[in-house]
């Protein structure tokens, strides 16, 4: 049968890996697989679901575009008797998808923030780069950082800018932030792309040695930056793990009528990548133990 895999945007290595791993897993289990991308638009996503229905898919692996906005699309697939397995992001309604496999963003943000404090020390001004506000993960991560960092009263957040997960925007917003706050000691970023943009801006301003940057995702570029010392750390999201797992649960569900997992929502813990363990990073988003 055909498993339709719908990811956000393969132009980002994170989702590229998500799609590729899911496809490879599905093919190894004897399915044909089809990867498409909704680019964050709920309407496109709904179109993709319709297409999956037209193509008589046996299961849909979906990275939902919007916690609220994707519910309708999932319902539509359910109504067509196709089981849906959500990966990477959740929807705000239980009981629709057979499983929701996501990385533990709160846990990841917490370990990231702790590592960040370790690198920077417990006082000074810092700024935050925030992801796309329409995406729940942006707020989850930001809140996770906040919880840890507010424990250090001498760390002052002097600026927070939305850079929409994008490197160019991270670069330009960082340059402007540097103008407004030349005295910062650290940048904490909602993802790696924005962090890499910030690093380029800091390099240009000659401030990379004073200002420490932390990322999130564990993308190959960020790992390279950690290796070279430009980035302090990144938080690895186990995307390769849970997207493979999603396909396996789909397979199990098709064959047995149950996913075999204890609950619908399954959290996968994130791991920290620092200079110390960066050599264990063997493939995109894979940290061998």
């Amino acid at each position, binding site marked *: 049968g055909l498993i339709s895999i719908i990811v956000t945007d*393969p132009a980002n290595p994170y989702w590229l890996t998500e799609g590729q791993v899911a496809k490879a897993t599905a093919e190894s289990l004897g399915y044909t697989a*089809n*990867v*498409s*991308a909704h680019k*964050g*638009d*709920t*309407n496109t996503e*709904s*179109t*993709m679901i*319709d*297409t999956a*229905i*037209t*193509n*008589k898919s046996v299961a849909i692996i979906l990275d939902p575009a*919007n*916690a*609220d*906005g*994707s*519910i*309708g*699309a999932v*319902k539509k697939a359910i109504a067509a008797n196709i089981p849906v397995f959500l990966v990477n992001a959740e929807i*705000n309604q239980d009981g629709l998808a057979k499983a929701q496999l996501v990385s533990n963003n709160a846990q990841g943000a917490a370990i990231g923030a702790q590592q960040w404090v370790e690198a920077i020390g417990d006082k000074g001004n810092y700024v935050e780069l925030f992801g796309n*506000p*329409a995406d729940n993960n942006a707020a989850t991560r930001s809140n996770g950082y906040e919880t840890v960092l507010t424990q250090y009263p001498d760390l002052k957040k002097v600026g927070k800018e939305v850079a929409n997960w994008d490197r160019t925007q991270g670069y330009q917003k960082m340059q402007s932030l540097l103008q407004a706050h030349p005295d910062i000691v650290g940048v904490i970023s909602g993802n790696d792309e924005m962090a890499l943009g910030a690093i380029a801006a800091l390099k240009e301003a000659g401030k990379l040695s004073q200002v420490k940057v932390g990322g999130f995702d564990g993308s190959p570029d960020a790992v390279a930056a950690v290796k070279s010392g430009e980035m302090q750390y990144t938080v690895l999201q186990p995307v390769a793990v849970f997207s493979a797992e999603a396909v396996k649960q789909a397979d199990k569900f098709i064959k047995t009528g149950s996913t075999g997992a204890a609950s619908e929502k399954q959290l996968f813990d994130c791991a920290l990548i620092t200079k110390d363990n960066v050599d264990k990073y063997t493939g995109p988003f894979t940290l061998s133990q």
Partner: protein
Amino acid sequence: MTQPSANGISSPAAAVRGTTISPIKLLLKGRAFFALIAIIIVFSFLSPNYLTVSNLLIMSSHVAIYGILAIGMLVVILSGGIDLSVGSILALCGVVAGALMQGVKLTPLGVILFPPVWAVVVLTCALGALLGALNGILIAWFRVPAFVTTLGVMYMARGIALLQTNGLTYNNLAGRPELGNTGFDWLGFNRLFGVPISVLVLAALAVLTGLMLSRSSFGRWLYAAGGNENAADLSGVPVKRVKITVYTLSGILSAIAGLVLSSQLTSAGPTAGTTYELTAIAAVVIGGAALTGGRGTVRGTMLGAFVIGFLSDGLVIIGVSSYWQTVFTGAVIVLAVLMNTIQYGARGIRQ
């Protein structure tokens, strides 16, 4: 822009000539017709699921959103303008509809009002009309270029949609029977004689607009104003009023598209419709209209919308990788128009 010169006025002319032109002939005159046929044939070979009634209907319901926007864009382009704000107005109207469905809190009275669905629809369309009229007034009275005005309104409407929802998405649009506001999902979910309502809405709007363009005085004013604004003005065509009307129409149609979309998705988010203006313009231009105004038909625009929609859905159905989808979409858009140019030859084509 380049097109067969008789294109823009062929439909009123045909209407008058009084000869009954067969639907086939009418279709053949649309520049994107062959592209559409080619697309359907190719994909039918590549996937058995493509040429089925149910898939054609589903694809048409996808086309509906772009198609409705494209109709509004067509009238604007006919007047010699452009409307970049359609996608944003769609989003703002969608979230306002969403907010209304959640109930309006009247703080001083301490009550929450749940307007019935028809009232939500009317209010949303009124909002679209208002934003469109704002565009029109800035363009017609204050002579701000259309591109700048609608770009500005595009940003503003998007920003307001984001502010109003704080970036979040409304998802409970079905309403509740005890509040008397059910029925919102009718537009997006129901079918009449097996045809999705959204497709019927598109068809109705297309026919109405087609009639307006070919049969009403307003239609002729519109073609005249787009063809030679000065001459139209000297002949007593109320050019300013025409302009304000077309932008208002485009605003209303964007609101309708917003309603259809949120009904289809049963959710309304502030980032919906991003870059749809480009798709709508592309549909209009592929359909043979000139960006310089005065030339174009509803028929062509519909063909253009179907070319784009059937192509992108087809690529997804046969499972082409998303990168290749991008490449093919570009190539087909150019080819569709190129084929047409070659077909008609250089004759009658003026720059």
